[in-house]
């Protein structure tokens, strides 16, 4: 059930309501208008839906969830990770541009772009979707299990800037829809929105009724067809009702992890940590090498210029030699039979429900990342490097 703590309510409403309004448009004109979205026609709602707390019955078992995912091509996840922040103020955009790897100053209003918050050593603190409502109003969306590194990474460098972070976690309920059939599912769920041209980073929004904002952001969080649905409190019962009508039940975060690992998509907290830099993590597309200084830029530019990236992220599968063999765990070191030292480490693992095979992701030194290479973990398990997904 979505609840709003009094303090969070004040902060979040600051973000949504204390925005400059266009001409005659008031709050009653629809908060969706404040986001630069067209306001959808009000959807007739049964009164009981408004009283519903938005709870959905989850799948009864992992196998049940997997079967449903295969049949439908899409799964609904209530993520137990991630956060949403409002970042407001006349310096908010400029500050974030100065602290992160991608160029966001040219981001058009009403669109989103991903950027990497790095530390002074050029290592990853967080990877953030920045949705720009206007020069003064941003929405920051992260999949990190803990929001405090991002918060600290921004707030400790907010000195004379007019910029403020507001945690909207308790104000915006989030769901992920993932899987190859998701686009069809989302078109049926939210027919008011225009999904005719949706690439990764596309964001659509509407106001179902006064204050009932629903945002849909296409990401690649678990693979190319991943949509993050965010709904303000007033819209949660309606969105939950639509999920239920479509037969969608929330599935465990385990399935999200399986799909993500199958698609070799890194996530903050597992692959994307302060142990690695964005080049090692394969996030070169999120780095603008011409934008000038940002925190950690000097290190990242040097690594790129002198081709000093030593390791890369790869997928692997475990070669099970005995029926009772243990599965590989995150954190295990990886070595090669031909050298007496570590060549990498395991970051994530997941069980393929279809054939009970273990798949995973790991960082490996470049010389050992060719598809088919067999390596041994510190616990004696054998893994085989998979081709890029």
């Amino acid at each position, binding site marked *: 059930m979505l609840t709003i703590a009094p303090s969070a309510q004040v902060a979040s409403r600051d973000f949504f309501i204390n925005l400059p309004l266009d001409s005659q448009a008031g709050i009653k004109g629809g908060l969706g208008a404040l986001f630069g979205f067209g306001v959808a026609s009000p959807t007739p709602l049964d009164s009981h839906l408004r009283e519903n707390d938005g709870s959905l019955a989850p799948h009864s078992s992992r196998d049940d969830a997997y079967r449903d995912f295969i049949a439908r091509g899409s799964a609904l996840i209530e993520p137990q990770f991630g956060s949403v922040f409002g970042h407001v103020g006349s310096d908010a955009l400029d500050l974030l541009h*100065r602290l992160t790897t991608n160029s966001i100053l040219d981001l058009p209003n009403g669109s989103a772009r991903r950027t990497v918050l790095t530390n002074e050593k050029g290592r990853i603190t967080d990877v953030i979707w920045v949705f720009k409502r206007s020069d003064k109003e941003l929405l920051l969306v992260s999949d990190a299990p803990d929001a405090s590194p991002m918060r600290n990474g921004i707030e*400790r460098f907010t000195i004379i*800037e007019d910029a403020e972070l507001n945690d909207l976690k308790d104000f915006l309920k989030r769901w992920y829809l993932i899987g190859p059939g998701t686009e069809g599912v989302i078109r049926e769920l939210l027919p008011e929105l225009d999904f005719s041209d949706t690439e990764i980073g596309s964001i659509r929004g509407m106001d179902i009724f006064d204050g009932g904002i629903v945002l849909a952001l296409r990401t690649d969080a678990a693979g190319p067809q991943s949509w993050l649905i965010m709904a303000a409190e007033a819209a949660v019962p309606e969105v939950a009702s639509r999920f239920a009508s479509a037969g969608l039940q929330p599935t465990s975060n385990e399935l999200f992890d399986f799909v993500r690992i199958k698609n070799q998509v890194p996530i903050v907290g597992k692959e994307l940590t302060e142990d690695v830099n964005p080049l090692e993590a394969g996030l070169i597309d999120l780095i603008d090498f011409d934008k000038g200084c*940002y925190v950690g830029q*000097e290190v990242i530019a040097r690594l790129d210029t002198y081709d000093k990236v030593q390791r890369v992220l790869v997928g692997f599968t475990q070669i099970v030699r005995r029926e009772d063999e243990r599965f590989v765990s995150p954190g295990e070191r990886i070595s090669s039979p031909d050298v007496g030292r570590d060549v990498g480490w395991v970051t994530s693992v997941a069980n393929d429900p279809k054939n009970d095979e273990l798949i995973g992701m790991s960082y490996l030194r470049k010389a050992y990342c060719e598809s088919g290479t067999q390596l041994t973990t510190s616990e004696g398990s054998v893994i085989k490097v998979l081709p890029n997904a």
Partner: protein
Amino acid sequence: MVIAEQQQSIPINTVRVTEKAASKAMEFARKAGRDRCGLKIAVQGGGCSGLQYILELVDGPDEADKVITENGIDVYIPKRAFVFLAGTVLDFSDGLNGRGFEFHNPNAKRTCGCGDSFAV
């Protein structure tokens, strides 16, 4: 007096602008047609090391600025930035290999290659 000696000799609760830096700042102001202005020294988030210096000619201090007069020029420092700048000497380095205005900041634990960014 060399910069290191100046840094040792100034109280930690102030910022010093060398005669050369003050003279250069006033020269820039004159060229810009601004006879009556001050030099704002501030710090903002960003740069390779996390914090970067800002130098700006401004008409007067903001409410939250600390005001210091150094070698004939008024210097305005936002109080929130002062904690990062206390004890700093602002100098000017000219010549072919000169780097222009240079900050010698005792609070900086690390400075990036260009000298505009630092970490504390």
